[in-house]
């Protein structure tokens, strides 16, 4: 099995002196489903920013799909980001575009042809149970639906890795189950999934690998883990 991502003794100290990550080492294999949990301010979002090279680590090494991020030049960063699909708590859809165009947008950016866009987008929308919402605008959708659009956009370029930072943070509980179910389905298709979440019940129910972060350190890392473990 290929290693999808690896953190080796990674520390991140922000400009203002906040130490968000402190000597973090972890390894995630291809095809895994991993929860990252921990109290607010534990450094979970920072970990994702480092992964996307939105920030650089103060110390240590990060390897994504065999590539050392420190050796990546600025102009190569977009190609790293195309290997992963990201989803955020606040959806980050473009309000002026309808559902179809929001998803097609990610394909436009990566230089896909019109034909492949017209083939691929409806397919991904149907995977996310959004086939009948293609012409709707984000403001006309529920939180759960908007997050599914964001998921479709993350999936549309066939990424190796899906990264979700609190994907259910803004939607009501039973919709959260649906989103997690979809993420699980995505994972069944061999895509590695990394989910940051505060949803205790979901984490406990799903019996996946759980990495518990606290004050920038890995407190525990267990297969079929439970939420708050110390």
């Amino acid at each position, binding site marked *: 099995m290929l290693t999808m991502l690896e953190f080796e003794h990674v520390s991140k100290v922000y400009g203002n002196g906040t130490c968000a990550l402190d000597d973090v080492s972890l390894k995630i294999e291809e095809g895994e489903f991993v929860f990252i949990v921990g109290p607010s301010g534990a450094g979970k979002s920072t970990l994702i920013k480092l992964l*996307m090279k939105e920030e650089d680590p103060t110390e240590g090494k990060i390897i994504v799909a065999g590539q050392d991020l420190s050796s990546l030049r600025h102009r190569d960063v*977009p190609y790293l*980001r*195309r290997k992963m699909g990201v989803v955020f708590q606040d959806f980050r859809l473009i309000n002026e575009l309808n559902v179809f165009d929001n998803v097609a*947008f990610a394909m*436009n950016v990566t230089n896909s042809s*019109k034909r492949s866009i017209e083939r691929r987008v409806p397919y991904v929308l149907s995977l996310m149970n959004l086939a009948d919402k293609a012409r709707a605008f984000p403001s006309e959708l529920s939180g759960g639906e908007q997050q599914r659009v964001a998921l479709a956009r993350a999936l549309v370029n066939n990424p190796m890795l899906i990264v979700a930072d609190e994907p259910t943070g803004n939607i009501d509980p039973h919709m959260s189950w649906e989103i997690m179910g979809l993420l699980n389905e995505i994972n069944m298709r061999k895509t590695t999934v990394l989910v940051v979440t505060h949803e205790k019940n979901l984490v406990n129910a799903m019996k996946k690998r759980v990495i518990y972060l606290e004050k920038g350190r890995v407190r525990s890392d267990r297969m079929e883990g439970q939420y708050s473990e110390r």
Partner: protein
Amino acid sequence: MRGSRFFYFISQGFKYFKTNKYISLAAIGVLAACLFIVGNFWMIYLNVDINLHRLEEENQTVLFLDDSVEEEAFPEIEKQIVAIENVDTCVFVSKEEAFADYREAYAEEYEIYSELTESGINPLRNSFAVTMKDITLYQETVYQLSKIEGVARIRKQNQTTLDGIMTVAKTIYFVCYWIMGLLLVASLYIIMNTIKIARFTNQRQINIMKFVGATDWFIRWPFIVEGCIIGLLAALLAYLFVWYTYVNVMVKLGGTIAVLELQPFEQVSRQMLLMMCSCGLLVGVVGSAFSIRRYFDV
């Protein structure tokens, strides 16, 4: 760049322009006002320049040769004259030709000339008629010419008027350059800050583009297109105003100044349009591109 890319950038540029309608219009207004002032100074500059060139063409400096210089030496002297950088044309006029010219020019004093002809005396000298490329370097060039061996005397052209015109022209050039330069820098600054306001509305979209893996240039191109639209519209507007002002104000006022012969607008219209468009494009594109600079460090 694929063809479809190109059209995507263009249409995206128009979209940005429309989303930020009011700010775009404000930017056009400011830029057009600046370009209008720049255009008027450019107009003055052009007119002075054209008049000066005319003066240059008309201006002839005559080098009289010493009578002792043998005919064989003429080509050598000509070579030396032409070697001077600022010399534009150089025509040899033999004393016989000069004599014939005089006789024609002063036909009423016919007797004097026929007397001279009969006695075989030609009081005139062999000479070279020289014109210069850049009349602002007149003094220096005359000095260089006077150093050539065999040149006995130099007849300069009404030097005092020339000096006067030169000083005025140089001052006008200087003022025009500075004002135009400062205005362009100022408008660039204003445009950059105006467009920056619009960027807050684009920020979300830029951010989304970045995390789905857009390259910097993919993000930048539409903004450059938007800058082109702003720059070109402002240039066109300024051009029309300059035209109107020139025909209705400047030409009427300028008619009273005798020295400066104002050109009809058609004569300078193409140069003016070109100037306005290039300045507009420059400011628009640079302003627009710079306004998104800070979004590129993540």
